[in-house]
């Protein structure tokens, strides 16, 4: 577990030491005081399963319930609208999302689909995101929270799972 204060402090550290600069396939990264927002191209192993997939969007936020970092993601795909003949970018919803995302060697993770209000602003609305269930995060990451916990978490939850 990591406290909110420690999480926010390590976000600043990630920003300062440019830890995510070398993330492969990256289109954009935005680090704020409370979360990390990332857009990337789709890794080859996902394109090989579905060639309509266009980009991945991530948010790393803090879960008050689990007191852990929480990875939210959406997969965008491009579809041709047969009625109007134009291409549209839409969210890809997959009933077998675990099979799509995870390499066969990673079977300890579970994915849920839920609503998240990304900013604690009363006027912002909720939106739908896939999330990687964080209940065993502490055991998976290991070590002390003060020792680059968020970097180690990003290494597993973002870089390893999504091959970025």
């Amino acid at each position, binding site marked *: 577990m990591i406290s909110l204060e420690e999480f926010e402090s390590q976000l600043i550290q990630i920003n300062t030491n440019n830890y995510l600069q070398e993330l492969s396939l990256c289109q954009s990264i935005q680090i704020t005081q409370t979360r990390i927002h990332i857009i990337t191209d789709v890794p080859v192993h996902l394109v090989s399963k579905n060639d309509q997939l266009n980009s991945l969007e991530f948010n790393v936020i803090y879960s008050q*319930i689990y007191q852990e970092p929480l990875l939210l993601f959406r997969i965008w795909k491009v579809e041709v609208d047969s009625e109007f003949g134009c291409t549209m970018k839409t969210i890809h919803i997959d009933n077998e999302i675990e099979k799509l995302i995870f390499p066969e060697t990673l079977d300890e993770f579970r994915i849920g689909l839920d609503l998240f209000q990304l900013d604690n602003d009363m006027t912002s609305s909720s939106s739908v995101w896939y999330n990687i269930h964080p*209940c065993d995060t502490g055991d998976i990451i290991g070590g002390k929270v003060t020792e680059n916990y968020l970097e180690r978490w990003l290494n597993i939850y973002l870089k390893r799972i999504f091959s970025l």
Partner: protein
Amino acid sequence: MNVIQNLLWQGSVNVQIIIDSELLLPGVPWQETIVNLRLPRNSYLILCIPLILKQTGKFLKLQFDSNTYIPWFEFENVPVYWNYPIGILFDTLTGLDPAQRDAKYFKSEDMIYYWKLQLGFCSITDCNQNGIIPFQSHESNQAIKKYWIHQWKQACFILNGNSKKIMSFSNNDIELFWQSILERDPVKFMDLSNKIIPKRPHRLPIVIYQILPTICISNPVVIIDNTNRNFQTVFDLMKREFPNYFLNVNNDSGTYNIAKVISNGIEIPLEMKLLEFYLNFKSMDGFLYISLSFFTQSN
């Protein structure tokens, strides 16, 4: 299951479903497609979608097993989030004030009150813009079951500090647990939920749903102080979360609260102990749902 829990388990809401007229085949009068249901408060709206579509599917322009369009409910142009129990949706979206309910709606024993919802279909993108979790109509049961299990994992984590208790359930246990909701079997439900809920919880899983001034759904952190558990009341939580709405435990001291705490259609006394509130009023997904009802001028 004690008397309160048993009464709450039996709580129900009369619902009238009307299909969006634009979705009907030409010449079909919308009155032909009305579906009236009495639904348990402790259940999910989408569980009745197969029944609604079985009854009305022949009148629809769309194929209801289409992967492109997602069914959704709306009430007075507000989306109804299917992932919450029916009872909390009804209480919040109608701004239910139990003190006014009988006078307003039950003027005679011959009258029945129902909640009128419209069923429509939208694209995945529209779903997302409206904060609705998309699901395929022919897989609605699986979608809500998966969501419900995730809710229990969260509730288990909050209550125990880890999810081990529910993670140790076998597939058969999970199936029995889910069937207890579908079959409305309170004994089976309590047997299994009691294996997850400890006598001395670590924290309490609570959701507060308010629709005014804007729709806001919050999960407050509620830590149970086991050394002084008599201290924590509903008022303590409300005062901390909504200091502008809740000023006093009662309204005798000259300053007035502007909201009431509602759960399962019942106004909750502010002096009630939080742990007692949770244990009696929790929902079938392990969370305690609270809606806020605001005093009107007539109050």
